[in-house]
């Protein structure tokens, strides 16, 4: 009888023939590109993580291209934006948020200095043309995104210059004219954009004409009309409203004389005005705002809506701020103001759930004042737009700004915006919707990916390094023309880029590849179509979860097997 040795009934083989992948009982690892919090918070729709990744690789021009794929005006926003991205940055609780704002500005300036070309193609000769009302940041962004969508853009601007609020409402100490002009000129010189200056809607063109002659109409008129302001029916005879005072000053370089100024409001215009008046010689400038100042316990809803840096600088310069207060009464001599009565106030929740303003009896005090400036906001100039307005603003239902077929609202005029970045983001979104409408495609949807929270990161793998601070002109040396905040510089900008945690996106750090006990992570640049460098070999992955736990950025997550 034949005796079988053990070797006779199975040939020696490699363990690769044994697929351990079926050991996974509940979860498998997947690559999930979650939104970085900076990206989720950016009103302009920039993906800061994406352009910081390019900077980390040392590709500065590519980083700028990535940046301007969303925001064509980085030199401007890099100076004026209240940078909610930095407030959201997951690094803020570690050793300070990234100086995203300063790096953005540096990239914008580099692009101007080096003449880098915007990543757009000239539209086809027979491409549809979109009419855009207003050449402010929203209108300019819309025109630029028209080119990116293969459309032509025709802008109608009432003023003799393009730039909108960037030019008329922001002091040079924050936004000097050189980078602003350079960036706007570069953008307007792109083939496919036509600009008509001194062409006012309702006077020189009408909405009905534009709707008939153009494929779509985008409304970015901004808010030009001051809201009515009085205190118990009293209005001083020499009332100056905030934004118009600021505009006059920017045109003529002079303020009406005043010693004790009270500014009533709580936005960037109010703070800009306070600082300029103080610098122009007013002894006491007081800001009275219903909102709260930033502090550890401040409710974000209650926080004053001012660029944090600007607020710090204002306090540095000796602006007094009375928070949680309002002007209760004007004390007048004849029709001239001699003082104000201030009362404490807070926004309290009401039974209906909406906030209401409650002023507290017994907190009234009187302040001397010879000028009171309301800075309580502006409304859309209704000329030619009356039928579309819902009160002071458009209030569109859609995040894409759609008012009616082929008509979209952008920026401050929407009613629920209030930043340059917001207007720029609206421009991109409205054009996306308009382009889909023109081409007969389904309407675009918002990016609903989850946001990567700091708890999803593994902090062990990041080095601590302090945030870079740009140079600043000291308060005593500040003028009306010199920019206060300086350039961060190439070295600091590139070093700052290395601090980016790359939340939710692959760093290509090799951790998963190095630490998989089962050799089930395969490194490959060509085949990893999800943007990473790695594949999971689910034939062998036992589902231990080690790679997900040790992934610094949260890019690897464990999901139920059936998903």
């Amino acid at each position, binding site marked *: 009888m*034949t005796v*079988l040795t*053990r*070797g*006779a*009934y*199975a*040939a*020696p*083989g*490699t*363990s*690769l*023939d*044994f*697929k*351990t992948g079926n*050991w996974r009982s509940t979860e498998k690892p997947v690559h999930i590109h979650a939104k970085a919090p900076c990206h989720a918070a950016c009103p302009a729709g920039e993906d800061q993580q994406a352009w910081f*990744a390019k900077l*980390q*690789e040392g590709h500065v021009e590519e980083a700028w291209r990535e940046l301007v794929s969303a925001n064509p005006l980085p030199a401007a926003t890099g100076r004026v934006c209240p940078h909610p991205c930095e407030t959201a940055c997951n690094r803020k609780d570690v050793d300070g948020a990234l100086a995203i704002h300063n790096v953005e500005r540096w990239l914008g300036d580099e692009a101007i200095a080096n003449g880098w070309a915007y990543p757009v193609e000239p539209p086809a000769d027979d491409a549809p043309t979109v009419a855009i009302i207003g050449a402010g940041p929203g209108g300019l962004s819309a025109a630029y995104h028209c080119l990116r969508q293969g459309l032509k853009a025709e802008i109608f601007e009432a003023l003799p210059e393009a730039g909108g609020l960037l030019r008329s409402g922001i002091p040079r100490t924050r936004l000097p004219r050189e980078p602003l002009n350079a960036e706007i000129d570069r953008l307007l010189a792109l083939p496919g954009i036509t600009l008509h200056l001194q062409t006012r809607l309702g006077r020189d063109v009408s909405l009905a004409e534009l709707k008939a002659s153009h494929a779509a109409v985008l409304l970015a008129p901004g808010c030009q009309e001051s809201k009515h302001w009085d205190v118990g029916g009293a209005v001083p005879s020499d009332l100056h409203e905030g934004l118009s005072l600021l505009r006059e000053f920017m045109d003529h370089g002079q303020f009406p004389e005043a010693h004790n100024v009270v500014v009533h409001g709580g936005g960037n215009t109010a703070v800009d005005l306070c600082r300029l008046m103080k610098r122009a010689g007013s002894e006491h400038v007081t800001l009275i705002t219903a909102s709260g100042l930033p502090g550890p316990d401040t409710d974000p809803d209650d926080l004053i809506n001012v660029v944090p840096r600007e607020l710090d600088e204002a306090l540095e310069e000796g602006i007094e701020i009375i928070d949680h207060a309002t002007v209760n009464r004007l004390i007048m001599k004849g029709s001239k103001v001699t003082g104000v009565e201030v009362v404490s106030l807070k926004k309290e929740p009401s039974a209906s759930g909406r906030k209401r303003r409650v002023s507290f009896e017994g907190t009234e005090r009187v302040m001397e004042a010879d000028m009171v400036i309301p800075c309580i906001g502006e409304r859309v100039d209704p000329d030619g737009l009356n039928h579309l307005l819902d009160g002071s603003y458009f209030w569109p239902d859609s995040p894409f700004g759609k008012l009616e077929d082929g008509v979209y609202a952008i920026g401050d005029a929407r009613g629920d915006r209030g930043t340059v970045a917001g207007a720029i983001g609206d421009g991109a979104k409205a054009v996306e919707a308009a382009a889909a409408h023109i081409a007969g495609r389904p309407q675009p949807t918002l990016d609903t990916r989850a946001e990567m929270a700091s708890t999803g990161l593994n902090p*062990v*793998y*990041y*080095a601590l390094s302090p945030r870079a601070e740009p140079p600043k002109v000291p308060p005593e040396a500040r003028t009306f023309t010199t920019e206060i905040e300086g350039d961060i510089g190439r070295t600091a900008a590139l070093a700052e880029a*290395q601090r980016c945690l*790359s939340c939710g996106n692959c*760093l*290509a*750090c*090799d*951790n998963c590849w*190095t*630490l*998989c*006990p*089962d*050799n*089930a992570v*395969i*490194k*490959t640049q060509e*085949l990893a179509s999800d943007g990473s460098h790695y*594949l999971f*070999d689910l*034939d*062998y992955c*036992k*589902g*231990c*979860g*080690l790679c*997900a*736990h*040790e992934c*610094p950025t949260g890019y690897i997550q*464990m999901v139920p097997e059936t998903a």
Partner: protein
Amino acid sequence: MQDQARLAELRQKFGREPAAPSEPTAERTPREAQPRFRGLESGHRACQGCGEALAARLVMESAGPDVMVANATGCLEVFTTPWPQSAWRVPWIHSLFENSAAVASGMEAAMKAKGQNTKVLAFGGDGGTYDIGFQALSGMLERYHNILYVCYDNEAYMNTGIQRSSSTPHAATTTTSPAGKERMGKRHLKKDLLSIIAAHHIPYAASASVAYPQDLQRKVRYAMGIDGPTFLVVHSPCPLGWRHASALTIEVARKAVECGLFPLVELERGAVTNIMPIRQVRPVTDYLKLQGRFAHLTRDGDPRAQEERDHLQALADYNINVFGLAGDGDDPVDTSGITTVGRGGPLAGRPQ
């Protein structure tokens, strides 16, 4: 024909699909194109999150491909070579529990006789190194064989079901040192094997941890370059025996180093020549509370638990003092610096 029937019967009995070994394919698969040596391949039967499988894979990457392995009995032997398959892609011999150093000595002598330079590695777990194979190891070191001996230290006899070894840390519970009314886990201390090895005055002996793969692989490469006996003990968490989640293997190993209970040191000719500084020394409870084998130490209100915690803290402090582990300012290769990654990989070793 009769053979075929018997063959089918046996295959049935051993419960495996009668598949022929996979044929090599013409085009290179992504797995074959990996930019590293795959000495220990996928398909091995280690548990989820096995620290030892990871450690062995990392050692093989840095040591291979021109090596041969003598492997003691233990998890590593069992899970890599369930007959008729092998996860090893180098020559590999298993004989007994107690003799991997002796087998390796013979392999090395044979290589010498053949005039070949293939380096011999000897692998064992803590049972096969600290206890059962100890005299063979001592002899190997004394006879000055050109062998790198790697001990995968998971601090108990995990293969046979978590029995205490002389490497099991003080106060850990195992099936033969259970925590209960009488005792708080293991009564005795973890054997200081590295000092005994160092007393052989061999060229190089070091401890490493799977939590610091770059450091581990540097130590392997350094040992590979030495013509003589070298010894490496690698701290390799065992999720099953230590009772922690399989995803926490690296975190547990890292905390063992950061609290001082498992110092990473290098000894040459018996003298300490290098240590990995700890940037932020953490309390031992950070390490203990992750693991079920120390669960009895984290109970509140038990004075015995308090005493044993303090004992382990004292042992960690002792290590920190004796080896000077507390960091002196930030160092790119201290416990925090060496883990730092940037885009494209670890930062340690990159030009600053």
